[in-house]
């Protein structure tokens, strides 16, 4: 039933964190080595025919424009065709989608998708917070990243009775999962009280409602369906994907309780894959803030609109719950190295569907996983990728 023209045959990432001792290039090499080593039947770097690189913001480490040439040189395969993708927070997941389309086009049979992001070479004030002064000098002034999601929390709480405890339950669950993930930035549990007592960052969001700033890299190998068996007997198929855009400015959102870009992208991915929300076994979704995961699980169709907070606090999205969400720890615990995030999420889906996720393994019932990112100023773009182990 799925599209299934392209197979994932390898996936890998480096331990996320504040990687002050690693350069952008060293992180890229680490992720590439991990993906090469992950291929069941062996893989030689020279087999890569082309690469798609996701890096969202080179300015965070002083690079105005990173071309597609930076990564092949760093990982030892200079000369291959390589293009950089930038599409806001979904850059990594969009690179994956584009990589799949490149393979499906027949131009290249073996494509590396690699996401690399250096977030911590600049201080917070010079890095992400400086966006308070970016964009329109009036309509965006003061708009740090939480300002793009906190208005949804205010309105969701007002309209549906969502509580700070419900928001906090997302952080508690994802830190629990992160403690089981050897690649996560944060690998320790937190309590609900710790979330509630953490300092306010952007009311109603507090520090532990927010993802950290993380350096990281992740990579996957995509090959044509015909050649998948050369690399593995357990391929994971690209069942479908969807991308959607919405108005970028916060004052142009149609509502403040949902993200239309996510809904549209999901509808397209579900239609392409023939998979419905209740056939998804697990999802890696964009939880840059706790409220974002609550919006996501509603907009992706896992729970009814308005019930995301209750579903979270009641454990429906825990590893053993009805629909496990972010078993990797999500952006909140695993981290959010922007260009790498989507690729790392796909990696988690790959491992979960192949029963390789260790202590955080979910129960695979239907063989389908969903990966999602949303971002771009006021959530102006979303990407959903659906993966499956079910051969068409």
């Amino acid at each position, binding site marked *: 039933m799925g599209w299934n023209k392209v197979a994932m045959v390898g996936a890998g990432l480096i331990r996320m964190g504040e990687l002050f001792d690693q350069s952008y290039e060293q992180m890229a090499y680490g992720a590439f080595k991990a993906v090469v080593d992950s291929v069941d039947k062996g893989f030689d770097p020279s087999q890569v025919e082309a690469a798609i690189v996701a890096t969202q913001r080179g300015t965070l480490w002083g690079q105005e424009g990173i071309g597609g040439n930076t990564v092949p040189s760093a990982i030892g395969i200079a000369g291959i065709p390589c293009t950089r993708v930038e599409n806001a927070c979904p850059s990594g997941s969009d690179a994956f989608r584009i990589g799949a389309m490149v393979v499906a086009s027949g131009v290249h049979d073996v494509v590396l998708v690699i996401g690399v992001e250096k977030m911590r070479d600049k201080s917070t*004030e010079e890095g992400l*917070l400086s966006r308070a*002064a970016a964009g329109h000098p009036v309509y965006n002034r003061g708009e740090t990243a939480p300002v793009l999601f906190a208005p949804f929390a205010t309105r969701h709480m007002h309209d549906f009775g969502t509580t700070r405890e419900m928001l906090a339950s997302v952080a508690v669950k994802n830190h629990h999962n992160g403690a089981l993930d050897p690649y996560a930035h944060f690998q320790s549990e937190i309590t609900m009280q710790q979330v509630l007592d953490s300092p306010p960052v952007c009311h109603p969001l507090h520090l532990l409602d927010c993802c950290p700033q993380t350096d990281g890299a992740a990579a996957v190998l995509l090959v044509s369906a015909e050649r998948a068996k050369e690399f593995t007997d357990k391929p994971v198929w690209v069942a479908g994907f969807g991308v959607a855009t919405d108005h970028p400015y916060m004052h142009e959102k149609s509502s*403040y309780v949902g993200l239309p870009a996510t809904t549209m992208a999901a509808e397209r991915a579900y239609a392409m894959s023939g998979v419905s929300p209740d056939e998804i076994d697990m999802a890696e979704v964009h939880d840059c803030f706790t409220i974002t995961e609550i919006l996501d699980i509603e907009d992706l169709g896992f729970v009814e609109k308005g019930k995301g907070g209750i579903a979270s606090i009641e454990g429906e999205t825990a590893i053993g719950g009805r629909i496990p969400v972010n078993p990797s720890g999500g952006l909140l615990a695993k981290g959010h190295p922007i260009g790498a995030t989507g690729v790392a999420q796909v990696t988690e889906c790959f491992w979960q569907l192949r029963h390789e996720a260790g202590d955080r393994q979910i129960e695979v019932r239907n063989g389908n996983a969903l990966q999602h990112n949303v971002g771009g100023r006021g959530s102006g773009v979303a990407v959903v990728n659906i993966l499956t182990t079910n051969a068409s």
Partner: protein
Amino acid sequence: MSDDAKSAALCPVGVLSVGASIPRGRLAVVDIASAWGLPGGRGSVAVCGPDEDTLTLACSAVERALDAADVAIDTVGGLWWGTARPPMPEGPSYAFLATAVGLDETADGMLASGSIHAGVDALWAAWDSVACGAVKTALVVASDALIPGLGTGAERSTGAGAVALVLCGLDGSSSPAGKLVSRSSFTRPFLDRYRGDNQPGTGDPYDARLYREKELVPLVSGAVDQIRDEIPANARWSIPDPDGRLGKVLARATGAKEVCSEGVFAKVGEAGSAAALLGALRGFQDAGTVCVVAAGGGRSSVVVVELSGPLPGASDAISEFDGGARGVRPLGYPSVLRSRQQLVAMSDPVPMGVPPGSAAFVRGNVEMLRLRGRRCGRCSAIAVPPSIHPVCPSCGALGGEEIALARSGTVQTFVINHTMPPPFEAPLPLAVVDLGDGARVMLQGMPEDASELSIGDEVGLELRRYALERGAPVYGFKVYRLPSDTSASSKDEE
């Protein structure tokens, strides 16, 4: 002066209304004194927040004066602005204010500056333009938010504020409550308060007794004496009071019996170019004669106003002494120093994505200063701001009509940002607001509203300074919470 030098018959003009704007922030003078290890200090001075300056004060005073006169801005022939320290000493200060108040691009007017005498300079020039028939209706605004030098005596007396008057001809087409009937001026070259070309703040270097008794008293008397015969004994006087004591000395010297400016200094300090008209506000409440005396920059001038009844707008203007409808807001000395950029973080403040000289501001200044949107000709949705929407974001249609957006609405949702780099100050509310005309905007709110803001709150919009970079200000509208006893509908009707 020779008898031929002045006209025997000065041509009077009408005064339709007055409007005032005084920043709500108040700094206790004792706080300034104690910061410098000095004893004492009485009263408080009105001080700007980081997003206010002489232009934002002038803008709201003008809007209030127009409201009080029920005059539409498109019937105003010109704007005369007096301010000792315009936001850009060289630059488009006047053009920014004229645009912000909605004045027609072809209108007359000028920016008078150079000293705190500038308010009266602007008033005289506007008077002349109305009298000679160049314009029928004129706006005059005197405003200042001077930046005193650190540790100077001026620091303990410098306040801020703005007063606007709407003037008209006396051709019978309108019946103004006030008339400008007489004036005089006197000049002597001496330094009182001044700021040199390379100095950041205003200081007052002279010995206080020399300044008070040897210079200022004869200066002001020199102006008053010229027209003393024309001033009735029961006139109400606005007398300069640069330090809270000199006002009494000057009143004695000039023979002013009823001093309507008394007590103003203790509430707001000395508001530079606006001081003379602020001191006159209490005198504008009833029929009679008001003598407005200004002094500064080695000049003193007197303007005599005759009133047939209360001047429209006077009582609202007087309420500004106590913070207007929203009340005063006590501010600490460090916060005032930050607002004046006299206290700056060692880390460089984060620059804007594009500097104020960028083409982005050429495209966007008018729509930011006037809060413009574009109403779609097909689906009537309003796009904000027009320059970033080549087509209607709702239906994709091209074109439509540019409109001025409503200045009030309700909060759809909001946040309070606590985490920003310098020069931002927390807590900073940011609100998505559904305006009365159906447009939606997201704008900054006021820090003092942070603890109370809620979804559904009625809010108003007013011009504030969003940034000051490379010496150039960026202005746009901000959201303030309307006091709960003021309904949005009554605000809309104003």
